[in-house]
């Protein structure tokens, strides 16, 4: 929902970044205000996922220039765990498996670390158990997920639900969801998208990185941005996503070449 007076959460200016010496982001500009949903689309290798990972602070990427303000403060002055405590959440395209660590212990440590980082009360294991079971209902997850190792042996759909469960627990101000729809069948997509929708409020915001328009049938974006070769080449509203669905990316890329 667009509200021009809403607080600006994220301000990205001329961001460039490299991985292994190769420049992937070549000058990104983006403003995200509270209450907004942004979709970032684009062909493979355009830098969409890189953008999300750079914002979350993945160590493999190096920021070369530009600045990012999160709630008016320099995001890059924070380590990745500090960013999470400050309210940035990255939903992983490929959630990482952590054998031996139970999901419940992991979720509780994450929750309590983030809570104490925000000056809020931590929960003891019993209180947390009540909370997490409540949140799991939102995602139609069975309680046995709690006793399994984090993402270990989870199906693609289970992993993605587990990501959104973490989003539900950590209550981020800005959620970056990296291809949350990939690997989901249509039922799982509906549940996961439904979960995300319930978490969106006028005070937080969401950036969806996705290949396909189908996710946007469930989560309606306020803005759609198309990335190509490390830049946002076109921004629009939901209609842009539908046009991409119909015509592919080529017409945009061709139009850009012609303009250049």
């Amino acid at each position: 929902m667009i509200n021009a007076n809403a607080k600006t959460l994220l301000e990205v200016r001329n961001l460039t970044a490299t991985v292994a010496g190769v420049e992937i982001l070549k000058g990104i500009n983006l403003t995200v205000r509270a209450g907004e949903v942004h979709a970032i689309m684009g062909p493979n290798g355009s830098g969409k996922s890189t953008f999300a990972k750079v914002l979350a602070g993945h160590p493999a990427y190096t920021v070369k220039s530009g600045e990012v303000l999160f709630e008016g403060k320099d995001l890059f002055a924070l380590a990745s765990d500090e960013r999470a405590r400050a309210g940035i959440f990255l939903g992983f395209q490929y959630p990482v498996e952590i054998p031996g660590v139970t999901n419940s212990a992991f979720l509780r440590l994450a929750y309590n670390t983030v809570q104490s980082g925000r000056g809020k009360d931590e929960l003891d294991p019993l209180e947390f158990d009540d909370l997490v079971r409540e949140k799991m209902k939102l995602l139609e997850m069975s309680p046995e997920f709690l006793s399994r190792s984090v993402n270990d042996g989870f199906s693609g759909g289970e992993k993605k639900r587990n990501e959104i469960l973490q989003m539900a627990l950590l209550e981020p101000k800005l959620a970056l969801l990296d291809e949350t729809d990939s690997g989901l069948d249509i039922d799982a997509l509906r549940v996961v998208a439904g979960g995300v929708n319930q978490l969106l409020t006028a005070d937080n915001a969401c950036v969806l990185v996705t290949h396909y328009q189908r996710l946007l049938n469930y989560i309606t974006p306020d803005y759609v941005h198309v990335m190509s070769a490390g830049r946002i080449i076109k921004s629009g509203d939901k209609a842009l996503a539908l046009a991409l669905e119909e015509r592919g990316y080529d017409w945009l890329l061709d139009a850009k070449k012609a303009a250049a």
Partner: protein
Amino acid sequence: MSTVLDNLVSQPYKHGFVTDIESESAPKGLSEDTIRMISAKKNEPEWLLEFRLQAYRHWLTMTEPQWPNVHYPKIDFQAISYYAAPKPKLKKSMDEVDPELLKTFEKLGVPMHERAALAGVAVDVIFDSVSVTTTYKEKLAEVGIIFGSISDAVRDHPELVRKYMGSVVPVGDNYYAALNSAVFTDGSFCFIPKGVKCPMELSTYFRINTQDSGQFERTLIIAEEGAQVSYLEGCTAPKFDTNQLHAAVVELVALDNADIKYSTVQNWYAGDENGVGGIYNFVTKRGLCKGHNSKISWTQVETGSAITWKYPSCVLLGDNSIGEFYSVALTNHRQQADTGTKMIHIGKNTKSTIISKGISAGQSNNSYRGLVKIGPRAEGARNFSQCDSMLIGTQCGANTFPYIQVQNPTAKVEHEATTSKIGEDQLFYFQSRGIPTEEAVSMIINGFCKDVFQQLPMEFAVEATKLLGLKLEGSVG
């Protein structure tokens, strides 16, 4: 990334100080005269001197084992002093113990005063070659338990020592056991009589202090019919840039329905990050489940030593006897570990469980080596083995060498093995949920070691968790 992990795995050794205490050392070198000298110093009976000499003569015919997956320069056995003891000699009560020694063990967190002791843990404290004190000795004696140094036991209970010493690990068992049998100086002795459940944890704390001395202690634990005991062992040593040899022998004997639980947290000095100095830990530990329904359980957390060569084993002789081995071995920098167990099933319906967790960091090399042998008479024998390795960083190595020999068709033997790696992506996943790297590593490692830590007595579990933390955590750069 690599700097983060480097910092995490590069914590200084906290126990590396040397106690400035006047000590008496035997001249370096090994001969029959050295052995006679040790035996005379300890006023030993003739049969024990014979035991030593027999072992020594056998040792001379043996060669160092070459099969372990470890590499080190040849040891010059003539450059080692085989006896070192703090002067003045043994004291009768704590008040007479040298204050320097008291301070040393205080610094190490070992309770030498009964009143200050951890509730419910009796400690035998071994400093270089001698036992300096044993706490709660009298209280244990009230229920018939004999707990103290093996030297005292030789003096006060020669019939027990003579009956059992060498009965599990014969003098010629292997190169280092033979050497130990020839030159052992002290160690702990523990006897739990028939039907007695030991009312407290028994514990031995080993400290090497003298630079060119070796430590050759000998531990003997006997649990008679229906007896139960839980025994803990801890060890540390100062930082020297030379290597010290530690070649111990531990023998456990469990009679009918007896239960022995033996736990070790081994934190010998491991050498510096370039592999200079550190202890060579060449140890023979073996338990004999002699009686039916007896049980011996080994739990070890191995974090120290430049080289670890150690296979706490169970000989399951009695029908329905149970052997267990739970191990966490952590190597960092240039440490090398070749450790595991042997489960020898002889009796019927014998069961064994092996859970081994190896963690390698730095440029270290960590090998699990284990033998499961089911003898022809071991009807219905069962074994389950699980050997997991975890790698931290890209320059370390992990190996698993399982040996399985089955001579009875009714036996069931299972072996599972996994290798995993703490990677950048796992750590980033934690961080992206607000969890700092140090806590992430600690959680991953603890999750990995959980099955073993659960086996440790409470105080030790806490200590082991902290110890792994110290070895692996640190300021994140």
